[in-house]
């Protein structure tokens, strides 16, 4: 599998600052070929099956190299969200305490209800005081928060089992030394949706929480072509990010500076030292996020929001509320590898006009 050569960007995502992105063009260019070559069941022994098994192993090598694990630890989930259960319930035992943080994802909140989890509070700057724990305790730990972009300090003092939720960071943040189970989402590196990568550090302490009759982690059906496309996307995205990281940081700082100087009454999550350059969350005082998002959409600009007015259940983002950040007027931006300074300046100019108008 190789992605050398010029890649033509097909789906333009200029002015698109929403979390999702189209499939990376390198993966898109490869996907028809992947379906031609990887259709057979890799567990059978005919020629095509052997070829599929070889391709699956090649893909595993790529994931292992980028995610910092061994290829025999790489597993795939066709339902990424299942990984939260497989990663945490699997390493709990009688008497284990389950620690999670107030900014964890709702899937973790659901598991914490099931296992009587102990919620750790989160400070305004995103910092969390982790317990030391006992060897049988479990800590659910995010590499970074997908809403605010704040990178979590590594819980290196924690002595128990560590479930690493890397679903928002992809390969951008390395696994901590003391990880037990880990989950990634293919979407984080412009891969196909509906694919999770899951890993267990030590199978001897891992108990499958799902009904099972063999040693497999998940018996759900797996699309090898999608796995291959995701591996290609991971390689290409990692390369793009290394090239664009410095520019994204510049844009991130530019947006932060503009918001404070030109717009004002704004609550920005974290600082550019505590967040990844490609994510930015800010809340504008006295602004109705739904109206703001609609106005931006009308100008051809997409952003996400964690405000209640723009959510289906009318509840504000539990992440913003837990950190004490303003929950109304919230805008969540993702700076993609193809975002340019022109896109950013156009966004800022439009935002200023809309905010001034809405605040009247």
């Amino acid at each position, binding site marked *: 599998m190789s992605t050398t050569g010029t890649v033509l960007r097909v789906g333009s995502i200029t002015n698109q600052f929403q979390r999702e992105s189209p499939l990376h063009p390198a993966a898109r260019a490869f996907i028809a070929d992947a379906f031609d070559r990887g259709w057979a069941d890799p567990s059978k022994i005919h020629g095509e099956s052997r070829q599929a098994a070889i391709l699956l192993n090649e893909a595993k090598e790529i994931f292992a190299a980028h995610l910092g694990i061994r290829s025999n630890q790489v597993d795939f989930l066709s339902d990424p969200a299942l990984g939260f259960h497989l990663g945490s319930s699997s390493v709990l035992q009688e008497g284990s305490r389950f620690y999670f943080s107030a900014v964890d994802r709702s899937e973790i909140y659901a598991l914490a209800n099931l296992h009587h989890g102990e919620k750790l509070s989160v400070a*305004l700057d995103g910092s969390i005081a982790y317990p030391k724990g006992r060897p049988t305790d479990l800590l659910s730990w995010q590499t970074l928060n997908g809403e605010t972009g704040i990178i979590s300090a590594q819980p290196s003092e924690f002595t128990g089992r560590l479930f690493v939720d890397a679903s928002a960071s992809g390969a951008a943040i390395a696994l901590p030394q003391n990880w037990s189970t880990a989950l990634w989402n293919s979407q984080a590196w412009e891969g196909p949706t509906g694919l999770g990568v899951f890993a267990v550090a030590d199978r001897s302490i891992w108990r499958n929480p799902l009904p099972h009759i063999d040693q497999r982690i998940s018996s759900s059906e797996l699309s090898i072509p999608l796995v291959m496309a995701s591996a290609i996307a991971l390689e290409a995205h990692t390369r793009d990010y290394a090239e664009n990281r410095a520019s994204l940081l510049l844009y991130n700082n530019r947006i932060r500076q503009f918001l404070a100087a030109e717009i004002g*009454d704004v*609550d920005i999550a974290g600082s550019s030292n505590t967040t990844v350059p490609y994510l930015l969350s800010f*809340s504008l*005082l*006295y*602004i*109705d996020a739904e109206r703001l998002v609609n106005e931006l959409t009308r100008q051809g600009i997409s952003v996400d929001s964690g*405000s*209640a*007015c723009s959510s289906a259940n*009318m*509840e*504000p983002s539990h992440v*913003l*509320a837990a950190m*004490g*950040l*303003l*929950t*109304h*007027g919230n805008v969540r931006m993702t700076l993609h590898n193809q975002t340019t300074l022109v896109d950013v300046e156009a966004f800022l100019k439009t935002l200023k006009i809309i905010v001034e108008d809405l605040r009247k």
Partner: protein
Amino acid sequence: MRCPIPIIKLAKALETNPEVTLLSDDPATLPDLIAWSRMTKNQYSIVGINKYLVKSL
């Protein structure tokens, strides 16, 4: 009333009154009051169910 209307009305009322009692059953009001007080350097206290006393400093 839903966010950000309670906070907008509160800020307006505080312009002419040093103390305002806010009644709001919007689930976003308490987290917003916490953030708004920090940002605008005002002070709030919870005085009942969905009832807050806000003082300008």
